[in-house]
């Protein structure tokens, strides 16, 4: 995992559910991650995939990713180019799916309040800092298990490394 990176922000509201992140009608179609990425946020922001750039940052309000357990909702966002998600809070299965896909999901209500849509934000994973135009915000380090999964770029690689 890259320890420090900067990206442009795509900011959305509270209670974004997995049906608008990755519609249910696609969940049982067999897709590679690159194909999933084409449907990222399809029912929330239909123009998102044509605008997002590799390394951008998704910022959202509370309870991001609520609803269905579909893992594609995390994988699609990651492969669309999103490096990290910052939210006021996450729905628990989405949080797990993001970590297991190797995409950091950072909870920081204060940073979300401060960040403006479209601004550039820097995240320092080692120091636990989010650097925005309106100030720097800290977040607690992940537990060891979660850190190891992220360092392996996801759960499957992590399991492989253990076997």
């Amino acid at each position: 995992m890259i320890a420090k990176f900067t990206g442009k922000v795509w900011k959305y509201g509270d209670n974004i559910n997995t049906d608008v992140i990755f519609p249910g009608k696609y969940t049982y179609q067999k897709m590679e991650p690159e194909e999933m990425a084409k449907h990222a946020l399809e029912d929330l922001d239909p123009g998102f995939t044509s605008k997002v750039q590799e390394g951008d940052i998704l910022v959202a309000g509370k309870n991001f990713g609520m609803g269905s357990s579909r893992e594609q909702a995390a994988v699609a966002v990651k492969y669309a180019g999103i490096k990290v998600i910052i939210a006021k809070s996450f729905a628990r299965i989405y949080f797990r799916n993001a970590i297991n896909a190797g995409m950091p999901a950072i909870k920081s209500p204060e940073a979300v309040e401060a960040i403006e849509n479209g601004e550039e934000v820097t995240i320092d994973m080692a120091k636990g800092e989010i650097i925005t135009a309106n100030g720097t915000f800290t977040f607690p380090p992940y537990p060891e298990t979660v850190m190891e999964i992220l360092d392996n770029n996801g759960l499957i690689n992590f399991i492989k490394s253990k076997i």
Partner: protein
Amino acid sequence: MGKTFVEKLMGIKAGKEVCASEIVSIQPDYVLSHDNAAAISNTFKKIGVDKVKFPDRVVIILDHEIPAPKESSATNHKEIRNFVKEQGIKNFYDINNGICHQVLVEQGFAMPGKLIVGSDSHTTTYGALGAMSAGIGRSEVAAIWATGELWFQVPETLKIVINGKMPNYITPKDIVLYVIGQIKADGADYQAVEFTGEAVKAMDIGERMVLTNMAAEMGAKNGYVPPDQVTLDYLEGRAKGEFEALYSDEDAVFSRVLEFDISEIPPSVAKPHTVDNYCGIEEVAGTKIDQALIGTCTNGRLSDLEAAARILKGQKVKARTLVIPASWAVYKEAMKQGYLETFIDAGAMVLNPGCGPCLGAHQGVMAPGEVTFSTANRNFKGRMGCREADIYLGSPLAVAASAITGEITHPGRFL
């Protein structure tokens, strides 16, 4: 200091004392998957192990797109059948069984004190039988297939006490929609929810499953009803093995204790496009509906069909009405009781058990501008296949009454 139910259960699994917020690696008793088992088997193969570590702990139940509506779903099912054969998975239930959350309970896998996880968010349902059950992601299921275990955070517990006696126009669905309306969709994020109180004790297993199913819509990790004689009676001759009931200690520490009295609540409706967009039915009474859906893992059980049949007896529906029993066992019993005949005579369509149009894949997807009144658990934009359609959620009584009038209607009118 006393322990909560989940602290005890996860402690037993971890072989040590555990407290809320601790992360533990533990082995689930059963791991469920459904049509997504094909995708999971692909991920499993990428891990590089040949055999599932504990095949008898794997349960696969096909329900999401059954029978296959298109070639890709058929191929999906075929891959799963091949995988099941190749891995010697005996707990496999093909498309002629029903919705996974109903079948798993009917088959006796859901038992007090067991840890059950599944690649479906409504895996929370089995807590109605005193199990701890939680939804996980697909990769996580693949990881359990390969290694037998997974990391979990021990959750805090929110205790919800439901008191009062249900009026005849109120069902557990009304209660749980009301509660979600109060605590909101993130009201139980990352937490276990324990449902107690006189109203819960008076419910049968099917009714309790409505509460634990909908715990997912509060953001909960799991929902739990303390097992009692009702639980034991249901499991008699059904349980897959031995079990030990676990309970929160008297002095256990809960994150919050919320009490609700449901004696005087009106029938509940969740308005588009979130489950916590609650109102009493009078606020939206008269809203025209194109389609009524009675079924799904929330409200497709016998008590739900009985409720709908009570309303629809001798009536004709104005809205196109879909009735989907949760399993073939439910279907058969509803047939014996004459409910299916009541539905057909009223002009409703009785479909084969399965998830149906709940997730927008087939069997009743919506057109732009249309409105469905549904007994399902989600009304998110696009959920039933069309982002320009509206979904309202309510009880089987309310949906049946509204099917007759073609507009959202208080079920008391037909009781």
